[in-house]
């Protein structure tokens, strides 16, 4: 059984370079990936300890003919041991809590408008089953998001009907898009490239197809893009 449980880890290790979320293309996503790695590392310690003890005990204390009459010693417990496995996990979690707190404070989606005016602001509207992106000169496009590289992009998200969720796995985690409530989410320093965006909250029959294309381009290209005839509709 042990061999079987280890096999997937090998698959994981072999494939980790190409795993989307662990190889993000923005500094927001990188902080999240760092947290994932960090928590995985701490948890790997726990896993390893449990697996080693488990394997050892199962093999060492298994029933054999010789032990058929053997009555094990009657042990009620051991305060020292129990304190050990109360305090050590506590410390491990405290270590994990520090970066969690810091990054969560920075990144959590907020409700009130941000004062940061330097960045690029984009209004995102979700509805069954389509995304609408409105840029600052009110250029409006559906299901295609074009943003400049190396900027703070501030998304103002709102929904026309049910709850959706805005997710570009390569760039950053998701934020819910909720009716009657505007949420602000910031993605920092995206790298040039083409990515997939999706709706992550089940929103009805076409949920799976509620996707959009993301292009991160240079600042000049973005400005050019804004100037192109605004309110251009893609076919949908």
């Amino acid at each position: 059984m042990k061999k079987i449980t280890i096999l997937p880890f090998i698959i994981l290790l072999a494939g980790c370079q190409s795993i989307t979320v662990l190889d993000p293309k923005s500094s927001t996503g990188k902080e999240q990936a760092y947290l994932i790695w960090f928590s995985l590392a701490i948890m790997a310690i726990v896993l390893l300890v449990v697996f080693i003890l488990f394997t050892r005990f199962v093999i060492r204390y298994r029933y054999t003919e010789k032990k058929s009459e053997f009555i094990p010693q009657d042990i009620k417990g051991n305060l020292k041991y129990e304190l050990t496995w109360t305090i050590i996990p506590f410390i491990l979690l405290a270590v994990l809590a520090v970066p969690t707190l810091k990054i969560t404070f920075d990144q959590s989606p907020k409700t009130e408008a941000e004062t940061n005016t330097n960045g690029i602001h984009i209004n995102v509207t979700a509805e069954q089953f389509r995304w609408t992106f409105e840029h600052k000169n009110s250029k409006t496009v559906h299901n295609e998001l074009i943003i400049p590289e190396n900027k703070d992009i501030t998304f103002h998200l709102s929904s026309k009907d049910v709850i959706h969720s805005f997710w570009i796995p390569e760039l950053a985690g998701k934020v819910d898009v909720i009716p009657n409530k505007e949420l602000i989410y910031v993605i920092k320093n995206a790298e040039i490239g083409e990515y997939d965006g999706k709706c992550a909250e089940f929103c009805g029959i076409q949920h799976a197809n509620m996707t959009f294309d993301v292009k991160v381009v240079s600042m000049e290209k973005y400005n050019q893009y804004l100037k192109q005839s605004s309110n251009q509709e893609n076919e949908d």
Partner: protein
Amino acid sequence: MGGIVVISVLKYKKLPVIWEFMRTTNHRKIGTLYILFGFIFFLRAGIDALFIRSQLAVPNNDFWVFQFEKYNEVFTTHGTMMIFFAATPMLLGLMNIAVPLQIGARDLAFPFLNAVGFWLFFTGGMLFNIAFFLNSAPAIGWTGYAPLSTSLFTLGVGSDFYVFSLQISGLGTIFTALNLIVTIVRMRAPGMKFTRMPLFTWATLITAFLILVAFTVLAIGLYLLMFDRMFGTKFFHGPDGDPVYWQHLFWIFGHPEVYILALPAFGIFSDIISTFSKKRVFGYPAMVLSIVLIGFLSFMVWVHHMFTVGLGPVTNTIFAITTMAIAVPTGIKVFNWLFTMRGGVLRFTTPMLFSLGFIPSFVMGGVTGVMLSVSAADFQFHDSHFVVAHFHYVIIASTILGIFAGIYYYYPKITGFVLDEKLGKWHFWLFLIGFHLTFFPMHISGLNGMPRRVYTFRVGEGLEITNLLSTIGAFTMGISMLFFFYNLFKTHKKGEKVGNDPWDGRTLEWTVGSPSPEHTFTPMPFVEETDPFWYAKLRRERIKTTKEHRASPISRDSILPFLMTITLGFMSFCMIYKWYVPAIILGAGVFSFFVIRAFHDERAEHYGKEQTDDE
């Protein structure tokens, strides 16, 4: 299917048995019914899972009809049935069977109420299943998030079936929880202090308290949703309502529900690991304390399902910390189980194998749980297949392995037979391998950007291999179940009955006959330590008994519980279709059964007789 059942019932003249079980209020028989119907719903939900996995086997699949609306219905029924109609009832069944025997009680405190509780679950489950045949299965996910679940966006009756069937079965669950609490607090054998109770009973007690609070919150949520859907209120949408209210209510129920599923399983594993290691549980006080702590903390963490809702950084961090805190008592339990095994003599029987399979699998699920509690990282994990992997690791490793362990372990107490060990081992290994093969790759699918609840994915997203592996794993689990069926068949065909104590057990349930008779514990045992039966056997003595009198509930057959709940079921059906006139008539019918019950106590004629039995 139904036809075959009807024919074989008539052919083998089993009608009297069915009639007996419809009227029974005996804890073992009701427990058996709970397990039986829980298991039937488990199969239905399992077949749904195979549909899900077939649809997701390859990219851009258009497998039969399981896309779009159908896919959405299938994952909704899968999730809802697994949680409410499979896992919870099977655990309630095991509690029903084992708890009275473990504490030396003759039955649950309120046998009539117990029957009502079971039939409510049964009615709810049937109602939910009928929706499928009327082509109105709900398609809102098991979480039923508003406003999608309000009548603005799901016009048909599908979501009403969801609301009513969960409401009915939830009510039954609350009744059974109340019953268990009173039983455990009031009906313990003389000398069985709280500090001498077996851990399964302890876990049951705490679980029952969780049910009481959590299912009440769910009932309130469903009630409000019903008003939104049927009577035009606006709790969960519109300018004054808020869909996030539903999420709060749902998860204040939903998170403890996860522990309602896990804690009893922890109890079962504790008893089994101790029995088959020939050792008492390591650190009993710490084990009890951590069950209590986990139960308490489970109400403080619901927001970890809502990190992306925009409740703000302060809320997110507070709930990240409380969630991490739950890992500590859980860790204590894991190490205490390991050290229960240390120095013991481990017998790898089937129940023990399921318990051993639980430890590493569950720890893997727990570990990803801590990762999810890292709130900023959860922005990536949330609503992706990583989460699907995580919660199946937790639920299947604890609840489902626990239920199987419990069924193999208590099978003699239920039927008098021991299940075949060799087939049991096949079942275990195929299930365990299939389980890891299904769910391990889902972590990677999730990290590669696969959202949950999508019926398709494209080529080139890095999702092909992991999804194919998951599907193969799911079918392996399906095949393992065939070994279980063959085992049931073979065991009953062979028909070798066993004695009271087939496993060399430690607690009181192994002192009574197999299957457990309706009149147990005469004379009443007197308990002076934990694992009293084991230490009595070591000293080569019989267990001490006493003449002290204990309140003993009397179970008397009655068809009223069945009639009550079935009428309630028909009433709900009429409500769903807004046929208010028949609904009112049926409602009056339900009420009149209450009145009949109030004036009629079928135990009365037996009071005197029971008294003399005890002396």
